[in-house]
């Protein structure tokens, strides 16, 4: 039976899994530290000399290009590697949390135990993530293909609108299916990521509003919090960045947990001294003795 998504449950469980939230946050920061080191080493001394009023008209991008050009390739490599690590980490904690939650033998939220649950299933969940990424790229590009053809002007606006809407809808569906399919994939005996994704899609389609609500409540703010530091120019930009990303980590864990099914309870042990709990039937055995 498909789980009923709950944003409130997602919040409660994310609070319970605060160690996971912290680890997600720390990993995000740590993964991008090498990029920051490369940038600071290349640009730090020259950026430190920038005039008090900023660079002259049109200068800032030119100086940026001049400073970063020598390190563009190493930075690209470091950044790409960081992105791969980030994906691998996301797969690990998603898998770990899902399998830990579905293991009736676990109760306390120990980080090591959670991540330990994720390792054996990492490749399975990685395949699910790759399926979603490929589908994301495909469904994002496909709606725009008609514009490459020599279509008449009167079709351009409808195609643009269709492409925009289709891209958003496809993105939401692909990842909804992946999130819901991930919980199905975590069940014992499941191994096909592709089947899990399709089953997740089916569940999401059968519960469209319930599936969508956690996306609106957790995913949208979470992504916004990841990007918000780019817009903040205040004096404590670094602290703001760390705080925003911490909240974003919480949102991402809450999103994941919003789709969690009820935690299976461990079976109770049966004592021979206790009367059987199931109803029983009294059978009267005929005897030669009289009852009186």
């Amino acid at each position, binding site marked *: 039976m498909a789980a009923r998504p709950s944003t409130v449950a997602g919040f409660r469980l994310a609070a319970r899994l605060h160690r996971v939230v912290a680890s997600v946050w720390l990993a995000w920061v740590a993964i991008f530290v090498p990029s*920051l080191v490369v940038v600071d080493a290349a640009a730090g001394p020259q950026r430190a*000399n920038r005039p008090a009023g900023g*660079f*002259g*008209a049109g200068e800032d*991008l*030119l100086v940026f290009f001049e400073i970063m050009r020598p390190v563009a390739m190493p930075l690209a490599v470091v950044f790409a590697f960081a992105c791969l690590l980030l994906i691998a980490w996301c797969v690990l904690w998603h898998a770990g949390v899902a399998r830990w939650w579905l293991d009736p033998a676990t109760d306390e939220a120990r980080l090591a135990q959670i991540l330990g649950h994720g390792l054996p299933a990492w490749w399975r969940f990685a395949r699910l993530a790759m399926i979603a990424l490929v589908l994301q790229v495909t469904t994002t590009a496909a709606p725009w293909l008609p514009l490459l053809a*020599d279509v008449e002007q009167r079709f351009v606006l409808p195609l643009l609108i269709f492409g925009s809407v289709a891209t958003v809808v496809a993105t939401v569906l692909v990842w909804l299916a992946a999130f819901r399919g991930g919980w199905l994939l975590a069940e014992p005996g499941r191994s096909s990521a592709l089947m899990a994704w399709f089953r997740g899609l089916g569940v999401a389609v059968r519960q469209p509003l319930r599936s969508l609500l956690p996306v609106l409540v957790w995913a949208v703010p979470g992504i916004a919090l990841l990007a918000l530091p*780019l817009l903040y120019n205040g004096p404590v930009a670094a602290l703001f*960045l760390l705080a925003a990303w911490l909240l974003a980590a919480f949102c991402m864990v809450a999103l994941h947990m919003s789709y969690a099914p009820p935690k299976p309870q461990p079976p109770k042990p049966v004592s021979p001294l206790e009367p059987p709990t199931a109803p029983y039937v009294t059978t009267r055995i005929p005897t030669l003795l009289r009852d009186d």
Partner: protein
Amino acid sequence: MAGGAWAETPAAAVDTANYRIEVVLDPENHRLQGVEKVRWTNRTGEATDEIYLHLYLNAFASSKTTFMRELEWKSLRNRSGSEGGWGWIRVSRLTFDDGSDLLPTMAFVRPDDGNPDDFTVARVQLPRIVEPGGVIDIELDFEAQLPSIIARTGFVGDFHFIGQWFPKIAVFRGERGWNDHQFHAHSEYFADFGSYLVTITVPAAWVLGATGIEVRRSPPEAGRQTVVFRAERVHDFAWCTAPPDLMEVIETDFEPGRDLPISWFERARTLLDRSAADLELPPMRLRLMVPREQLKMVPRMIRAARLSVAWFGLYYGAYPYPQLTIVSPPVGAEEVGGMEYPTLIATGADRLDAYPPFSWSSDIEALTVHEFGHQYFQGLVASNEFEEAWLDEGVTSYAEISCLTAIAADGLVPEIVGYDYWAAERLALAFTNLPVTVGRRAWEYRHGWIYYLASYTKMALALRTVEGLIGPESMARGMRSYVDRFRFRHPTGSDLIGALSEAAGWDLVPFFDQAVYGDVVADWAVLAVNHKRPSSAEGFRWNGEAWRELDQEQATAEGGDGESRVVEVELGRRGEFVGPVEVELRWSDGTTERRTWDGETRWVRWRLEGSGRLEQVSIDPDVVWALETNRADNYWRDRMAQADHPLWWIREGLRLVGYVFLRFS
């Protein structure tokens, strides 16, 4: 349609080569049959017994022509099938004014590269010498096969854009001989001014646009129509035709009372120091030929055209022709766009340009402004595009960017997401790893993109630097003087440099020698700034009568605060470009001073005395040297700037991506 009024003709050089051409288009086979009469006058002080004919369509004859070889990737386009492909032109009759047959004397020449497969220049031996001032008449019949469009001219389906389609007499430069250059991929054209009377026969009901104005249209007969165009004081003739279901013609106008921004008028009056009467612009007709799929962009195209006419009319003189035709090619024919011909320009637009985010880009305005700019630089001021491409492309680019900057600053095109156009050009120049020489012949660059970088970008930035050095008033007056003096003539780079030097009041030849004819790079840097206390005075000083022992004044030390100190500022010139540069010094007491370094030596040390610390040094704070693209080392400050935003590099990277999108989308 009746003919329009023509402005005053300032000189007799406007009728050197007069053409009368009758041409019939075969739309099925995309062929032209033509009869041409040319009256050529020897306007030089040298006699000649030969003429050279440009037969540019032969550049499309095969993959081995000079043009095709230089085109690189475009020559790989598939040209097979019923769409045809190759183009050529053949002169079948060539007679002199005395009736003699000149065809046997016609021989193809390849003075630029000796390519035996190139047939774009032909030498014709005349039966007599043409003395200075002499006039000859030549008649010829020609047949031309239009190529499918890969560049400049040809057809796509029923759309025909016909440029460089007739045998054209080259320019005779007297002592320097004939300008007999072949047709190269990255060069354009050079011809004499004259009048054109061209009779064009095309299928009935097809729309037709051409250089000049329509003077007569015959009623359709046997499915064809004949239209006569007249153009005076032009040096080329191009035309465009297509069925009415493919292209639509929009007739509009430029009305100065409506279309000339008042702020532009006032600013031009100030910069040029001219009266309002001097800057009055006449009305003129605008004629747009636009594919039906681009009709949504027509209002924006018209607005761009009007703003172009206003800008160039104010700063470079009123447009002397009564009509401008603007052709936007349809899908598949984009390669004829971005090109200029006298009173006809080919622009371009995409179907997506009507919708954001593509509508945010100023491509339509940039193309229109640039191609209209060529109406002046190369159209009126007819420099040699083969040998000095920078003189029209660079000057036009400078004028274009100045116009776009004004358009964006004044919010005259609300759709545009404005950005710093000059900064974008500097970024483009910064992309190259090797220094670029501007002053080359168009086909002598290492790659095609270097031709664009040199002739367009670097030259525009060089002129921007000149503007910063001599001031906007002198620049505006110098440019206006150049155009006024050399309208309908063939100036060279020296003429432009002379006009600007005269307006500036100082010799700009050393600057242009470096910026145009050299490949030197401008790059200054703050090498060091040292704060010292004045050294203690020891020893003796001669007071005119005797040696006196000096007083102990101050201890020598670095650092400290609030007391008299000496600051040594060392500036260096890392690049080889020598020129004056301004340096701004900001002190801790809030005062700011500016000094000029002539840059003659490789480095200089200034010893400054002040009561406070020197807080900041900025070389070229006003960004006068647009040519300098290494700017990070132009700045020094005493206390380091506050810590950067940790994601500053992502923000700047995204901005850079945005600039690239707006510039190149």
